[in-house]
């Protein structure tokens, strides 16, 4: 019996190790290539022949191709604003739909779910022309607006979480004369840390991972204005890739740093957030 269990365990772990190694290979390759002394694409070896730190130094050079400092700051700025605004929107919508009873609640939630079913890129062209009419293309404000504007629609998971908060707490607060805002900020928010953390992480990630909207809105070709994703993409251009590919990999590694830090800090809330929100939807 014991040996049977042991064999099962070994098999399971072998499968897991295999899966993990498949999954890790590209990441190992990315990190290895980011230290490569050969600037172009090296398809002959998996690990670079010579190692150097120069790619990371070049990444922060004043070159217009490797203007990483400006891109990083731009993205960081947008991500921070986005993080605050989107989180507020999401949490507030979730609070309203979870705790208040009003006539249009159900229809509004249905509309929101249906709207959410459409991929965001469908609206790309119209978003572009509206922003252009308002003279907001090529501004970070316009880009932030696009990222934040629809964030209220992502309220479902947060609402699911709020539904688990005991009603009696709110009622007690109400009896004590607290306004809705006060109930929200002093009673509900402290109880909902996990879901708020989850929302913060997901809204912080949007600007780091988005390419389509950034490329479309920041189309002036001025590299100081770009976000990280456009800047890195530009390095892969035909005439540049042979001298910038390793630097591109270094950029890829650095981009993952702020996201990882945020994730590590908020990890323990994160798991609670997803599972808590998903229990009752």
């Amino acid at each position: 019996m014991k040996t049977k269990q042991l064999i099962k365990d070994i098999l399971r772990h072998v499968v897991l190790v295999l899966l993990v190694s498949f999954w890790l290979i590209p990441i190992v390759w990315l990190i290895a290539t980011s230290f490569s002394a050969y600037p172009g694409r090296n398809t002959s070896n998996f690990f670079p022949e010579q190692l150097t730190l120069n790619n990371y130094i070049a990444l922060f050079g004043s070159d217009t191709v490797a203007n990483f400092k400006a891109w990083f700051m731009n993205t960081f700025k947008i991500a921070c604003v986005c993080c605050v605004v989107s989180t507020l929107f999401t949490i507030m919508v979730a609070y309203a739909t979870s705790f208040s009873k009003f006539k249009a609640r159900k229809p509004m939630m249905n509309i929101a779910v249906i709207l959410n079913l459409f991929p965001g890129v469908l609206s790309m062209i119209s978003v572009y022309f509206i922003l252009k009419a308002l003279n907001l293309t090529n501004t970070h404000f316009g880009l932030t607006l696009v990222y934040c504007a629809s964030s209220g629609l992502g309220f479902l998971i947060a609402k699911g979480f709020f539904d688990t908060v005991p009603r009696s707490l709110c009622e007690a607060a109400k009896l004590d004369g607290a306004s809705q805002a006060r109930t929200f900020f002093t009673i509900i928010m402290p109880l909902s840390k996990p879901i708020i953390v989850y929302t913060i992480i997901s809204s912080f990630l949007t600007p780091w991972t988005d390419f389509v909207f950034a490329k479309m809105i920041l189309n002036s070709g001025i590299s100081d204005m770009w976000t990280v994703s456009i800047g890195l993409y530009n390095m892969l251009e035909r005439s540049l890739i042979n001298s910038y590919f390793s630097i591109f990999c270094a950029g890829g590694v650095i981009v993952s740093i702020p996201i990882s830090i945020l994730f590590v800090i908020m990890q323990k809330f994160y798991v609670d957030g997803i599972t808590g929100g998903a229990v009752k939807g």
Partner: protein
Amino acid sequence: MKKKILAFIMAAATCFSLTACSTSSNSDSSDNSGAGNSNSNSNSDSSSSDNSGAGSSDGSTIDLVVWGPEEDQTFLTGLIEDFKNQYPDQSFNIQLGVESEATAKDTVLTDPSAAADVYAFASDQLNDLVAAGALADLTALSDAFKAITGNSIDDIMAMNIEGSVAAATKNGNVYALPLGAGNNFFMYYDKSKITENDVMTWDGLLSAASAAGKKAGMVFNSGWYNGGFFLGAGFTASMNADGTTNLDWNKTSADGITGVQVVEGMISIASNPAFMAIADNDISNQIAAGELCAVVSGSWDMSTVEAAWGAENVGVAKLPTYTCGGNQVQQGCYSGFKLMGVNGMSKQVGWAAVLAEFLTNESAQMKRYEARQLAPTNIKASEADAVMANEMLAASIAQDAACGVLQDVGGKYWDPTATLGELIAQGQLKVGDTEAIQAALDTMVEGVTAPVE
């Protein structure tokens, strides 16, 4: 009641804050607006181009955006300063953006009205850009242009080599100014392994490479490279107004060579053990890997080749001849030029054209040559000592002269021709099997000439 009033006030506040946002960001964006789309500028294009001749400076600043490739950024920044100094009476706000010549068309056509006023692009994109109204007709601006610069458009075009003028002209109108040539490919060889005589023919080259224990490489699975064999044999490829491509490679060329003979010539090269068929986009990597002693590529690989073989060993020559139906046929290539165009939707067409001229004139071309070794199209610049002494440019120019054909093909050209090259490189077609070769050629031509959906 109280609640309703509160709701109303909230709604009003929301509206107000929205407008406040948009106005503040408006002023914001005109400060750093990238794409010259600020409507506030009272100068319409016609007024500026008409009376700019008199050096009209009504005090307003002219906003211009220039797009140039990455390699040009540094010296373009300098040239733009020179341009401002040249016209001190007019105040300019010129911004420089990055856009490679190779991808300019895609970016510009996404939204021509948001694109730069002046931008560089490769000559094969001209047709599409003109069709979209993204290039201003410079011939129509000629008079205003002459008033400022003292030269008409025709005068300027006359300063450039013939091929580049043809590449910038469509239906008799000039749509762009040439800024550089040499967008073609030629032969790099390692002088320590291969002699100048060997690279005259593919046969000589391959046997010399074999003797040296190295390989000679070329990209076969790309229509841009393998089309050279057909072009050299007198075949043609051209594009119609609707974007479809004409191709006669499955027939007999003007030189009396059949397509089958060309393919057989290619097969005998590809099947030689000293030949390496390189995958498209893998050339630089293969050069660095060190197995090659000769490779067909363009000016962009100069530094890679020098690093691999040592600068003193790098030789350059026009492409070799290949054996085709018992004769030696010169391998051709597509040639292309780099052009500087003025956006047809620019608010400042007149000044944009003047700036475009300034960025492509003789001294600008010399500076560009120094910065990135791009062959000048300006006749005087191309006759300068430094340019004449450059072996690489000489090879590129010799190749163009030998049989460069201006690239003029539609989007359907690339995949079928790449497939044929791949079939040949993999040895799936055999010399003597004329039926299979003819069938492969017919399939390719059918694919290339298919209507564009």
